[in-house]
């Protein structure tokens, strides 16, 4: 299947190249970059030297439409300029931006500061939220997929098993994210001198991923769910670790918690439940998912406070973006769900 990556010079574009160049059912026929057009992709993504002789090309519709499938790795607010024409032309679109994740057109005004509601509510309705474990059936044959946000992925998956049991108190989500989450063109605070040793909050009360976390948990719960979400920038390049604090009227037993998690993720190739009384990793750890599409989730019970603590660890660029996009692509196209994604995280790292 011929694929094109639009916006291929950024981190998620680079990860799409890394994954799709080794995908057994994909042929990368174009990688666009306005900034680097004419340059070999390995000059921008040095890890791809010797793997491909592909060059970046100018992003234009004529070139892109030679592909059967288009991955959009563009900034928020840019994909919306591409998707209507691509969709109309019949190619399958996997959009890694937020532009088609939220079902409510008005939500883009509140969470993404758009001056007007989303201009294509019909496409919002058609777009499948591309979290494979929660939307697997809808993804089959999908032509427009909105790939979830990185911290949203970590947050939603660790709380999904409890969604139906949430009480009136909003779950508290504390997330830590590495510097690559800020993209390949970060601001001055992402320079090494400012970024090293950092542990600091980022958008502590109104982060835009709240919108999709609440959208998905509400859908699972069958009623409106709010979350108290605070992310932190930490001194990692890759990785997200999320901790959820959930207060319930009646604390589940450990056996019940196992049932909730197994029934949610039982058939997943990529979600690993890590709650082990033995061994080196008794709860999830970013260290053991790096470079992979795995989501490690876990939990603990606090009987004293009636609290369930949940955990998740992902690689933000793989499972939080490009790997999840390819997983959704595999399902949509009828390929094995893990095609091109069978990377075992390296250890030690």
């Amino acid at each position: 299947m011929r694929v094109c990556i639009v916006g291929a010079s950024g981190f998620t574009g680079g990860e799409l190249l890394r994954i799709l160049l080794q995908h057994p059912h994909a042929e990368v026929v174009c990688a666009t970059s306005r900034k680097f057009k004419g340059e070999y992709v390995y000059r921008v993504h040095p890890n791809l030297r010797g793997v491909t002789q592909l060059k970046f090309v100018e992003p234009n519709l004529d070139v892109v439409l030679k592909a059967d499938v288009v991955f959009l790795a563009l900034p928020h607010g840019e994909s919306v300029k591409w998707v209507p024409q691509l969709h109309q032309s019949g190619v399958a679109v996997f959009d890694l931006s937020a532009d088609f994740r939220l079902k409510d057109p008005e939500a883009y005004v509140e969470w993404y500061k758009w001056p007007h509601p989303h201009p294509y509510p019909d496409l919002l309705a058609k777009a499948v939220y591309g979290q494979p474990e929660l939307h697997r059936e809808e993804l089959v044959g999908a032509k427009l997929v909105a790939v979830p946000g990185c911290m949203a992925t970590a947050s939603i998956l660790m709380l999904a098993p409890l969604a139906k049991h949430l009480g009136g108190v909003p779950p508290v989500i504390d997330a830590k994210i590495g510097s690559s989450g800020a993209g390949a063109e970060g601001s001055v605070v992402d320079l090494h001198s400012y970024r090293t040793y950092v542990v600091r909050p980022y958008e502590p009360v109104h982060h835009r991923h709240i919108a999709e976390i609440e959208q998905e948990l509400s859908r699972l719960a069958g009623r409106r769910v709010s979350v108290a979400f605070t992310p932190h920038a930490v001194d990692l390049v890759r990785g997200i670790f999320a901790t959820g604090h959930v207060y319930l009227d009646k604390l589940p037993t450990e056996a019940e918690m196992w049932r909730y998690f197994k029934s949610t993720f039982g058939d997943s190739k990529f979600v690993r439940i890590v709650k082990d009384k033995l061994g080196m990793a008794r709860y999830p750890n970013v260290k053991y998912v790096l470079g992979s599409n795995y989501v490690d989730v876990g939990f603990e019970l606090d009987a004293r406070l009636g609290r369930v603590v949940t955990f998740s660890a992902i690689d933000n660029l793989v499972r939080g973006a490009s790997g999840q996009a390819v997983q959704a692509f595999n399902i949509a196209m009828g390929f094995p769900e893990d095609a091109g994604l069978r990377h075992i995280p390296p250890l030690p790292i």
Partner: protein
Amino acid sequence: MAAKLIVQCGVCGTEFELPDDVMDGEITSCPTCGARYIVRVRGNSVSLEEFKGDVEDYGQ
């Protein structure tokens, strides 16, 4: 061929196999959650008993 000795973890519900030659009093652990058990063999019956042994203890 002898029937497989399948037991179920009382914590996470995982079913797992014990070796044919498992002995009474042997320590085993669940491959999923790591809960540890003492294997009890009584005639043809095999069961698991909670193991309350060593625990990790950090901090002073």
